[in-house]
C-alpha cells in the first residue's frame, strides 16, 4: 500500500450535469498534489467524494485503504479536511474549537496536543478570541491547525490560502511541506501558480475531467507552447491587433512587456511576422510558464465543450 488515494472513473451527477466526470486519480503516500482548474470545474466536489462527504454516483476508489462507498466512517477518522469556506464555529473561541475537534477525533493527551498546535501555528495570541472575530487570514490558519489536530494521514485542503497574505502563504506552505516530510499525504486545491509549483505533481481538471497531470515541467511541456516576449514602445497596440488571432493562445502584458504564446510555433511566427519589422521592439523567445500552459488548456477545453 503505497498509494494514499486511488479512484477510478469517479463521477458525480447533479440533475443532468456530470459535475465530476470519470476521474482517475492516484496519489502516492507522502506526496503533495496540487488540484487546479477553473471555477466550477469540480475540484470541491471531487475532494468531498474522497473524504466521504458525498457519495459518488459512479466509479469506485479507496482512500487510505478504505472503500469510498462503504467505509466513509473509517476514512473520516484519518482525514483532515479543510473546507473552502471557513467552517469552524464562529461563536466559539479558537481554543474551544480546537478542543471540540480533538474530542471528535478522540485525540489522546488533548491539552498537550492543543498547546503544541497553538504554538506551531502561532495561534496563542488569539486563543481566547471568538473565531468569528479573526481576520480572514487568521481564520484560514485556525482551520489548517484544526484539521491537523488529530494527526491525519491525509490532508485535503480546499483553497487553504485564499485571501491569505504572501508572508502567511509562505508559512502555510512551509507547514504543508513539513507535514509531507513526516509522511502525510496532501491534496491541495489552489488557483495560485506559485503554489502549484510547490507541489510534487499537479492535476488540472476542467468540466469535471482531468485534462493534464504531472510535474509542473511535464504539464508545461505537454502543452507544446511557444512563447515570445516583446518589449518596447506601444506593445499594447500589438495586443489589440492580435486579439482573437487563431494562432495565439495567450496574450499577457507584464509591465512594458507582452507575452505571446501559441501552440503551433510556425503559425505563431506567421502571425507575428508583420510586427517583427517594427523598429524599437525587442523580441525574445521565452520558456512558457505554467500559467501560459493552464490558459492554453482552459481555452482548448472551452472550445471542445463548445
Amino acid at each position, binding site marked *: 500500500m503505497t498509494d494514499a488515494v486511488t479512484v477510478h472513473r469517479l463521477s458525480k451527477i447533479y440533475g443532468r450535469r456530470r459535475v465530476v466526470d470519470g476521474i482517475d486519480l492516484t496519489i502516492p503516500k507522502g506526496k503533495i498534489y496540487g488540484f487546479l482548474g477553473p471555477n466550477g470545474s469540480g475540484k470541491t466536489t471531487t475532494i*468531498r467524494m474522497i*473524504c*466521504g*462527504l*458525498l*457519495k459518488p454516483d459512479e466509479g469506485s476508489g479507496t482512500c487510505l485503504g478504505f472503500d469510498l462507498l462503504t467505509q*466513509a*466512517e473509517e476514512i*473520516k*477518522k484519518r*482525514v483532515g*479536511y479543510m*473546507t473552502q*469556506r*471557513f*467552517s*469552524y*464555529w*464562529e*461563536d*466559539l473561541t479558537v481554543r*474551544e474549537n480546537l*478542543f*471540540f*475537534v480533538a*474530542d*471528535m*477525533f*478522540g485525540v489522546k493527551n488533548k491539552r498537550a496536543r492543543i498547546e503544541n498546535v497553538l504554538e506551531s501555528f502561532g495561534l496563542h495570541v488569539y486563543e481566547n478570541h*471568538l473565531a468569528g472575530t479573526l481576520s480572514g487570514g487568521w481564520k484560514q490558519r485556525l482551520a489548517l491547525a484544526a484539521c491537523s489536530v488529530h494527526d491525519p494521514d491525509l490532508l485535503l485542503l480546499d483553497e487553504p490560502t485564499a485571501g491569505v497574505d504572501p508572508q502567511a502563504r509562505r508559512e502555510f506552505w512551509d507547514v504543508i511541506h513539513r507535514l509531507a516530510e513526516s509522511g502525510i499525504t496532501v491534496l491541495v486545491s489552489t488557483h495560485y501558480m506559485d503554489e502549484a509549483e510547490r507541489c510534487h505533481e499537479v492535476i488540472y481538471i476542467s468540466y469535471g475531467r482531468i485534462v493534464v497531470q504531472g510535474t509542473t515541467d511535464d504539464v508545461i511541456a505537454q502543452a507544446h507552447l511557444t512563447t515570445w516576449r516583446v518589449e518596447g514602445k506601444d506593445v499594447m497596440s500589438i495586443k489589440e491587433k492580435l486579439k482573437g488571432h487563431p494562432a495565439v493562445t495567450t496574450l499577457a502584458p507584464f509591465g512594458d512587456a507582452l507575452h505571446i504564446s501559441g501552440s503551433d510555433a510556425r503559425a505563431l511566427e506567421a502571425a507575428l511576422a508583420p510586427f517583427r519589422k517594427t523598429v524599437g521592439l525587442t523580441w525574445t523567445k521565452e520558456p512558457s510558464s505554467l500559467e501560459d500552459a493552464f490558459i492554453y488548456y482552459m481555452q482548448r477545453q472551452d472550445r471542445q465543450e463548445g
Partner: protein
Amino acid sequence: MIQGSLRRIGAVLVKEFLQLRRDRPTLTMMIMVPIIQLILFGYAINTDPKHLPTTVLIRDTSLFSRTLMAGLKNTDYFSIDYETASEREAYERLQKGLTQFVITIPENFSRDLVRGDRPAVLLEADATDPTASSGALASLSGVVDGVIWKDLTGALGHLKNQSAPFVIEAHKLYNPEGFSHYNIVPGLMGVVLMMTGVMMTALALTKERERGTMENLLAMPIHPIEVMAGKIAPYMAIGYVQAIIILSAAHVLFNVPVLGNLLWLSVALLIFIVCNLALGFTVSTGAKNQMQAIQLSLIVFLPSVLLSGFMFPFRGMPEWAQTIGSMLPATYFIRIVRGVLLKGSSFVELLPNLWPLALFTLLSTALTMKVYRRTLD
C-alpha cells in the same frame, strides 16, 4: 468505543451550551416566552368575572321572587338585565350568547315555599366558558341561606328551622364535562414546550447548515445519534426550566393546585421534550434556511395548539378533529399534566396517556435517524 462516543456527545453538549450562552436573545426569548404566555393567558385563568348577564324567566311574581332576585344581585355575580315570562325567549337568549344564565322561578313558587314544599329554582349556565360561570355558581349556596331568611318572619318563622326553604338547581349547559378553569396551565405547558423545543432544535441544526459548519461536522467521525444526544441535552435543561417557570408562576400567581406526584410529571416532561427535539431535528432536515425552519416548525406546531385540547375542550371537538388530536403527542402530554396537577392521578391512571407519548418519542427519534443525512448529498 463507548468512551469515545461519550466524549463526542460531551463535546457537542459543551459546544451547544457555549453557543447558547453567547446567544443572549435566544436565551432570553426561551425564558420570556413561557412567562409572557402565562401572563397573557393567565388573564383567562384569573378572571372571576362579576355582573354576568342574567335572564330571569318569571313564572311567579311574588315578594319572594323579588327577594330572591335581589339576593342574586347582591352576590355581584349576577346582573339581572332581562325578565321575561316566555320560556322560548329565555332559551333563545342563552343560545345566542346574550345571556350567561337563565334563572327559572317556577309557578307557585311562593305558595310552595310557604307550604314548606321546598320548591326548586332552576339556574342554567352557559358553561362553554367554564371560567366565566364557576364563581357565580359557587356563590349560589349563600343566596339560599342568607337571603330569603329575612322574609320568613312572623307566621312563616317556623320555615327557618327547616334545612332550606327552597333549593337552587344549577345545570351547566354545553360543557357537561365540567372543564376546570385551570385547564389553561397544562395546555400552556404543552404548547410552550413544544414550540420552543421544536423550533430551537430545528434552528440549531439549520444554523449549522447555513453557516457551513455542517460540512465540517459531517466530515468528522461522529454518529448522528451522538450529534442528537449532545444537542438535545441543553434544550432538555431549558425545557425543564420552562416547565418550572410555568408551574411556579401558575402556583404563585393563580393558585393552581398540584394534587398529584410531580415525579410522574417530570418523567412525562422528559419524554415529551425528547419527542419535540426529535421533531425539531426532522424539521431541520427539510429546511434550507432558518426562515424555512421557523415556518416548518409552525406547521408542525399549529395542529397541537388547535387540536390538543389546549384551545378547545377535546371532547367538544368534531370527530375528525379528535382523530387528528389523538395523533398529537401534545394531546397526551397535556392530559398527563392535567391529571397530575388538577386530578391527582396515580401512575396507573396516567399510564394510558404515558405510553402513547413514549411511542411518539420512539417513532420521531427513529424518523429523525432515518432522514438525518450523513453526507452532503
